[in-house]
């Protein structure tokens, strides 16, 4: 009986783990935002981090965007040809890109490229006592380390999404017009008239802003709370990718259902 009770308690504790982590993460976000003071060094470090995690993710984002655009065109042309509507390819590519694929794929790539780097960097700072040293110097590491990276992620993901979309459209043009021989003017006019700035483009921008916040928050939180060991940093890095990917897809569905 006692053994059964202890098993139930263990199960309940296991179930409470994610809830506890969510609470800690929320408190971490509150601590980060509540302490924001507009200081020159915050602006400088945010810009520096935007370069390190944003600008340095550009190449992978652009390459992936270009090929996603090409493959989208290929699939769209194959499907639309059956109905004699292959000239609608830019409409299909544009809407699916701006509304869904651009923000989601960019955020997933960002989580893999920059989110892991943020977690590993902060986790390593924890493991080498740099965060302890900062606290002992009366410097708040949440403000000094986590906040600039969080803000940089918030700024970077929408900009990277825009680049992803631009390169995907380019890839689509190259394949549809250059390879498949569709009429270029029809391609552009369908895109211009069928894809709406407010509903399609801005809907994607809002999504990318939320995704940027999710990935950055998860990355800084797992880095900051990583166990100060090699295995601890490794686990935290893996958790960043897994959790941010799942959250991106869940929030994508929620936002699409309610707002877009």
């Amino acid at each position, binding site marked *: 009986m006692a053994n059964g009770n202890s098993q139930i308690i263990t199960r309940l504790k296991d179930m409470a783990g994610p809830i506890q982590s969510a609470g800690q993460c929320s408190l971490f976000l509150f601590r980060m935002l509540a302490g924001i003071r507009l200081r020159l060094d915050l602006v400088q470090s945010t810009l520096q981090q935007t370069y390190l995690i944003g600008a340095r993710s550009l190449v992978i984002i652009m390459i992936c965007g270009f090929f996603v655009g090409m493959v989208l065109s290929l699939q769209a042309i194959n499907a639309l040809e059956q109905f004699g509507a292959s000239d609608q390819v830019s409409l299909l590519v544009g809407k699916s890109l701006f509304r869904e694929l651009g923000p989601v794929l960019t955020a997933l790539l960002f989580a893999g490229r920059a989110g892991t780097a943020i977690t590993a960097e902060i986790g390593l700072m924890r493991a080498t006592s740099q965060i302890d040293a900062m606290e002992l*110097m*009366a410097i708040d590491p949440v403000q000094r380390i986590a906040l600039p990276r969080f803000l940089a992620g918030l700024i970077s993901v929408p900009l990277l999404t825009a680049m992803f979309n631009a390169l995907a459209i380019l890839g689509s043009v190259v394949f549809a017009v250059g390879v498949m021989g569709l009429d270029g003017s029809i391609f552009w006019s369908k895109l211009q008239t069928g894809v709406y700035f407010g509903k399609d483009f801005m809907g994607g921008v809002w999504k990318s802003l939320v995704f940027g916040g999710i990935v950055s928050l998860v990355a800084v939180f797992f880095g900051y709370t990583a166990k100060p060991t090699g295995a601890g940093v490794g686990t935290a890095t893996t958790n960043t990718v897994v959790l941010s990917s799942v959250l991106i897809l869940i929030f994508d569905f929620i936002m699409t259902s309610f707002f877009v």
Partner: protein
Amino acid sequence: MIENNDNNPRGQQQEPIISVKNLVFRYGRRTILDDISFDIPKGSITAFMGPSGAGKTTALRLISGQLRPDAGSIQVNGLEISSMSQKELYQFRRNIGVLLQNGALFTDLTVFENIATPLREHTNLPEALMRRLIMIKLNSVGLGGTEELMPHELSGGMARRVALARAVVLDPAIMLYDEPMTGLDPIAVSTVRHLMRETNDALGMTSLIVTHNVVQMSKLVDYCYIIAGAKIAGQGTPAELAASLDAGVDQFINGKVEGPIPFHYKGAGPAWSLVG
């Protein structure tokens, strides 16, 4: 004055800058420090010595406010550390310097920027004055000319000295050292030891050192506490400890295997036995 001054034993008439009373700290079910009390007089260099895992670093972390005690009082300059808010702790820490075991230099900053970090955060000094101050500190640890190097370009001893320069850049009243000599070669050990004494005396600081290096500490400190079994197992000046007849003190100071301080972790027994 560089070497230790054995004529300066713990004078109870001296004003204590750190006062710890009936301190208890537990980690899970394990009691790390059990009802320990001590006073650290102003201007002294005091060592916490003892076997690994005895709770020396924990004592240091409790004094710096990184950990909260389960019971007891820790007063620094008359202020109770254990009940301070985060904001009050940060205010208090501006007046202490801490040298961590590995130096904990910021790996993405140059030596100069590492030392500049506390100054930039807590002062509004003009850049020229800040530069001058940093160069004075860097020269005082014998590392003038290394200001543009990155931490990975420094040896262990150099990194420890840069960390010392960073820790004292705001001229703190209290300096806490966590194993400052571990992993250093004999020359670096002597250099760091001299620097610790010179810095303490020149800046009128009070220093607290956690270490197991008996030989070096006997040359440096004014007073020692030996922590073992969650208690203060012995205390006195280095000369007093060397002459002590207490079995625990004798075992630790002379590195004897047999004695009241156990080698095995508490609770280890037949369950882990290779033959059992």
